[in-house]
């Protein structure tokens, strides 16, 4: 009796989250509407992320035509693309800029979705797939950073992977060796070497994109099934049709943003923000140049790792992940006002540490040394 009840509950849960009976042209396109209120701008962020993802796919495929994933040739093949192939610098810079912009939009999209409480029933699965998509995007960013095989990429990857090993110090007995084992499995070798490059290449161009596409398909599908969440406490009652009004507005934003990104990539090389010693090919036998850093979107975890004890960061990081995954249940009865405040604090932390992290680090370390 209990058992059958459980299965019934499972079925009910799924059927409420994936209301297949709504699969119809009428419900998903003709009748879908987008609420109109002071937070309406947030509805564009997901679409923008999708725009940048498409740019990533196209430019990524183009880069594949010339890129060579071997330790001796990776750096010079990237150099070849940027210096000698017609429009190669544009393609590469567009890929780099668009990856950063994609993550920016993704983070803003997540923050606004959270603040608007759009994750509540029946949209829990949409939220969870969104969190998975965020993690996949971070994985793409992390693996892509290694591919040019330059000083900054390889050394940052080394540091990033090495921090897995640090967990070992907090595990008892035989388990203490487990993180090292995991690290070596990811690396494919005892060091960051050719095996690592091959693995990261496979992850970056095949594994992560395929997973991303599959999960993104579900994410978009369930958004169309459930329609837009109201997002505010006092709905204005006004709304606009998804098709054609919202689509047209969405495309309008896309065209402006695409042109801005295109001009940026055309005129400002992404590498110009890194000091040139870090752009040189990785030298396994030489010294590590100073100033090794991950990409800006990892600063929120990188600077705390630098400044605070490791166990605390590991704990907080896992806590954050758990909170993100369980948000629909944890914040079930939280008011939008409270969610907005939480988001505000998170945003101030994230952007604050991204912009002022280095100053903070200098300030604190300056006192130490």
């Amino acid at each position, binding site marked *: 009796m209990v058992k059958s009840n459980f299965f019934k509950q499972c079925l009910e849960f799924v059927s409420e989250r994936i209301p297949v009976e709504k699969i119809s042209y009428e419900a998903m396109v003709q009748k879908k509407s987008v609420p109109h209120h002071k937070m309406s701008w947030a509805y564009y962020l997901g679409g923008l992320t999708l725009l940048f993802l498409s740019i990533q796919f196209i430019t990524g495929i183009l880069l594949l035509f010339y890129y060579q994933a071997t330790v001796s040739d990776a750096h010079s093949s990237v150099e070849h693309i940027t*210096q000698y192939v017609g429009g190669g610098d544009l393609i590469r810079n567009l890929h780099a800029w668009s990856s950063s912009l994609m993550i920016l939009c993704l983070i803003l999209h997540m923050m606004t979705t959270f603040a608007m409480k759009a994750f509540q029933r029946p949209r829990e699965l949409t939220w969870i797939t969104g969190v998975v998509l965020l993690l996949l995007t971070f994985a793409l960013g992390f693996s892509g950073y290694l591919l040019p095989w330059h000083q900054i990429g390889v050394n940052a990857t080394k540091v990033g992977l090495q921090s897995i090993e640090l967990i070992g110090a907090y595990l008892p007995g035989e388990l203490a060796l487990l993180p090292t084992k995991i690290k070596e499995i990811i690396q494919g070798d005892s060091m960051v070497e050719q095996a690592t490059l091959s693995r990261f290449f496979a992850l970056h161009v095949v594994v992560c994109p395929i997973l991303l596409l599959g999960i993104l398909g579900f994410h978009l599908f369930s958004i169309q099934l459930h329609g837009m969440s109201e997002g505010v406490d006092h709905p204005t009652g006004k709304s606009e049709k998804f098709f054609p009004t919202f689509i*047209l507005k969405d495309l309008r934003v896309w065209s*402006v943003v695409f042109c801005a990104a295109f001009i940026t990539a055309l*005129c400002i090389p992404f590498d110009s*923000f890194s000091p040139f*010693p870090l752009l040189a090919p990785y030298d396994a036998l030489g010294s590590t*140049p100073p100033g090794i850093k991950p990409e800006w979107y990892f600063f929120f975890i990188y600077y705390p790792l630098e400044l605070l004890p490791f166990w605390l960061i590991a704990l907080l990081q896992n806590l954050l992940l758990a909170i993100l995954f369980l948000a629909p249940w944890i914040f079930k009865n939280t008011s939008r006002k409270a969610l907005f405040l939480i988001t505000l604090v998170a945003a101030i932390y994230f952007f604050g540490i991204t912009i002022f992290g280095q100053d903070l680090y200098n300030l604190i370390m300056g006192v130490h040394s």
Partner: protein
Amino acid sequence: MKKASCAFILFLLLAMTSSNNANAFPEYQAWSQKHSKRTVNCAMCHAHGDGPEGSKPGQMDTLDADAQKRLEVARGAEKPGVHADNPILNEFGNYIVFKLGLEQVYKMRDDPSQLKQALGEESDHDGDGISDGEEFEDGTHPLNNQSGAPWKLFIQNLQKKWVMVAIILFIAITSLFGFKHLLRYSSKVD
């Protein structure tokens, strides 16, 4: 006695200059780094990022007979105008020696801020529109057109690629115009 001490001083001076020629000029690197607040290494002027000493490609210990010969010629380039192809220097390093001569390079160590003026506006080895001297001051690489102060590169590239930028702006403006009218149309047919 006097003669001997003179000879000794001369010997010391010679030893000093020759050893200074053999070594790098880290004063320039230090100045560039301090002035730009960017990380700078020996690869700005040298063939290898860790400088001339060592056994990696572009360093002293790996030079073959031909490279040794070129090094000797380069070390004799006291006055400007010598096209010395010094194997431990890169194109920019060699250009500095060509333009100034080692004597001047040696003197200017006390005040590297003069280098930009001494190199002049016209030399721009990577063709990114920012002169070599300016790149030295900005702490960016004079031989890499992807390296430069971002804002300066933006202005330069905007001027260089203005046709492309204009086309893109045209696309943006026409599409905005188009969407505006289509939105009006869609609101009217509703």
